């Protein structure tokens, strides 16, 4: 790798990289998220087969980042045709090489299909057709372990333009005009945040990238750091220039080993190329980044707790003010943004504030990445303009609910968020509209729930999460979430009392008003929002001792329909509690006192004879 001493060095390097002979074909395999289903084996098989056939000079295999359509893991894109293959296994590799790479034919069985018709082109697959992939543009395209590949695709051009010919105030003004708001949850205007940190007195100043993506159900920051880490670093360089910070920290959770590896590698490469460190590109700007690995505490996503953790202490929040912009890391002015926010910054500079703000709603500009999961067909990462509707995301892009079930709600914003019910499917989603219906945009986790999901159980689930993750510093959060959990446990166990609904409401409002930090203030949201939209489900649990969704186990009864049972004994053999009795070829029965309601019998019965009520 060469060391760059000036901005023209960078331009020259990019031109050299672009002028390299291009291979006839490029096979891009998602080697990050899809690793869970054997992506590395697919890469290995491809490289072996290509070498065996002597195609090494003509075909390049890229171990790329996430393609987004995680339901199609292992996902592979073949260029220049732009063919999208899903569910690829190592055993499919000979066919891909033989038919697609050599004969130019697509393989229908690996394509996404619509009504039995194969859709070979990635751009025609509905999951991609309705997206606006700005921030994710190069995720799944570049090799995240190669700075050359990123630079060839334009990385660091925006940073170079800023360092070479802009004033810090002018950069902040541009970011302010773009309308970019923090993508981590609260949606604070990024330009304003930078302005406060720039104005604050203190030396040195710090910037932090919050990659402690702890909301269950959110994985966009993971994908960005794994698939396009140089984009995040570039955003931080621009921010450091604007704020005049000399030190940066990326705080990433230890649960994301690939993100940690790619981030560290990208920082080392950028430093070697002269894009980080002293006198960046000969402009006199000094800025370097170090990584800190989280040690497993959800509350560290809160900025003051995160700072305590970076300093090597217990990750407990403290009251604000003073805000980190005034007194942050080591007591110095500190600006914290999350991964997706930093990744938006180079796009603001490349496009210019006006073009950037050309999509979105009045109060929320640009695009937002959602992590689509739960009861939806095409799970994955989706980037859409602010103001897209839930219907567009869940149905047009996500392909709707599997097994012909009905959409009930979307849980947005993780443990701090709430449920958006079906009547708001056509609500344009932005920071303000989501808040108005009792949820929050949060980091963009979007869990789809169908009629078999119990909303009381979901509220109990999130309360359990917040109670476990409460740091214990303030009593409303420490004790309040525990009391709420006790009430919810009682309700889902069938022992709820009629007064419990009011108790939850009062307790929830008290915790929201009086907790110290964001974790506690938002912890009651899942309960309050389900009480608002699904109060009837609470009432059914309490008054009728019944779970309408059939999800709360203690409220279920399993029995065997003697008419349907053939006496095959499979259920008895699979019952972990030995609760099923009966002779071979005679109808069996469940001993209710022994039944642990695990559902194993129902899952193995071939005659549909197990009834669950």
């Amino acid at each position, binding site marked *: 790798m060469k060391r760059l001493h000036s901005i023209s060095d960078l331009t020259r390097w990019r031109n050299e990289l672009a002028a390299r002979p291009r291979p006839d074909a490029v096979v891009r395999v998602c080697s990050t998220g899809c690793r869970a289903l054997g992506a590395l084996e697919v890469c290995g098989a491809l490289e072996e087969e290509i070498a065996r056939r002597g195609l090494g000079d003509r075909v390049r295999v890229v171990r790329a980042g996430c393609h987004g359509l995680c339901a199609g*893991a292992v996902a592979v894109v073949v260029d220049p045709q732009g063919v999208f293959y899903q569910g690829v296994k190592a055993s499919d590799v000979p066919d891909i090489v033989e038919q697609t790479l050599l004969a130019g034919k697509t393989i229908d069985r690996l394509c996404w299909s619509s009504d039995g018709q194969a859709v070979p082109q990635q751009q025609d697959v509905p999951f991609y057709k309705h997206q606006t992939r700005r921030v994710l543009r190069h995720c799944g395209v570049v090799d995240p372990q190669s700075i050359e590949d990123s630079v060839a695709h334009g990385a660091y051009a925006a940073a170079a333009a800023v360092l070479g010919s802009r004033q810090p105030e002018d950069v902040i003004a541009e970011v302010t005009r773009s309308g970019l708001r923090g993508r981590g949850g609260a949606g604070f205007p990024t330009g304003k945040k930078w302005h406060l940190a720039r104005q604050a007195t203190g030396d040195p100043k710090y910037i932090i990238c919050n990659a402690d993506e702890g909301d269950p159900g959110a994985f966009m920051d993971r994908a960005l750091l794994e698939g396009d880490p140089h984009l995040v670093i570039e955003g931080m360089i621009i921010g450091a220039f604007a704020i005049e910070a000399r030190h940066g920290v990326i705080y990433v959770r*230890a649960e994301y080993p690939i993100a940690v590896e790619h981030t560290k590698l990208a920082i080392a490469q950028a430093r070697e190329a002269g894009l980080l460190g002293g006198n960046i590109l000969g402009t006199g700007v000094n800025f370097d980044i170090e990584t800190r690995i989280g*040690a497993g*505490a959800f509350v560290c996503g809160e900025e003051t707790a995160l700072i305590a953790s970076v300093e*090597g202490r217990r990750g*407990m929040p403290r009251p604000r003010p003073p805000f980190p912009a005034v007194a942050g890391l080591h007591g110095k002015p500190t600006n914290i943004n999350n991964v997706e926010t930093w990744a938006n910054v180079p796009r603001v500079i490349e496009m210019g504030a006006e073009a950037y703000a050309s999509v979105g709603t009045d109060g929320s500009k640009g695009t937002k990445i959602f992590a689509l999961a739960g009861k939806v067909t095409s799970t994955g990462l989706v980037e859409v303009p602010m103001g897209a509707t839930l219907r567009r995301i869940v149905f047009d892009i996500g392909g709707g609910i599997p097994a012909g079930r009905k959409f009930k709600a979307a849980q947005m914003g993780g443990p701090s968020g709430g449920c958006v019910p079906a009547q708001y499917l056509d609500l344009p989603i932005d920071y303000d509209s989501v808040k108005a219906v009792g949820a929050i945009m949060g980091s963009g986790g979007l869990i789809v729930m169908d009629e078999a999901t119990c909303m009381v159980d*979901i509220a109990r689930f999130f309360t359990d999460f917040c109670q476990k*993750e409460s740091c214990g510093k303030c009593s409303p959060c420490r004790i309040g979430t525990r009391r709420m959990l006790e009430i919810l446990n009682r309700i889902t166990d069938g022992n709820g009392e009629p007064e419990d609904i009011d108790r939850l409401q009062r307790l929830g409002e008290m915790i929201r008003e009086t907790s110290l930090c964001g974790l506690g203030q938002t912890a009651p949201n899942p309960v309050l929002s389900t009480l608002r939209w699904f109060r009837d489900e609470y009432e059914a649990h309490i008054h009728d001792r019944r779970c309408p969704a059939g999800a709360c186990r203690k409220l279920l009864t399993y029995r065997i329909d003697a008419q349907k049972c053939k006496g095959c004994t499979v259920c008895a053999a*699979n019952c972990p509690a030995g609760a099923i009795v009966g002779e071979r070829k005679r109808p069996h029965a469940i001993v209710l006192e022994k039944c642990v309601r695990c*559902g194993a019998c129902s899952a193995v019965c071939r005659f549909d004879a197990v009834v669950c009520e």
Partner: protein
Amino acid sequence: MTQSSLAAAGPSDAEIASALDRLAVSPASNLIAVLQEVQEKFGYLPAPALKEIGRRTRIPLSRVYGVLSFYAQFYTEPRGRHTVRCCRGTACHVRGAGRVLDAVERELGIGEGETTPDLVFYLETVACLGTCFLAPVMMIDNGYFGNLAPESISAILGSYRSKAT
């Protein structure tokens, strides 16, 4: 082998000293980073190592313990050879993670945060593995197992048990 006999076979003072020398542990070190490195080295945080870390960083042992007990990923006792991590994230939850965890607990005869008596498995739950598209998911060491059903647990754990013996 019991837990205590294994603990007795922990690293010697000399091994601890040499590990801390290599990390150049000093009052300028970041405590969390040091604890992470030491745990990486020994598989857990042995009590004599904590004392030595406190001495070298000039951080009182009480504060060292306060920090390590705050974070989920530090542990002061050796754990099973294989770590089973059941995801309790939202996507996993709505797709039946509770039943999967029940099946794992039944199969191993231990609860969350416990090690099997033969020291083969340690079981923990994690908030989210970020692999929601595979829900419900568990990890055993660095391997992912997705789209799980309670019925599939026995065979998966069995394959690790046979590897262990």
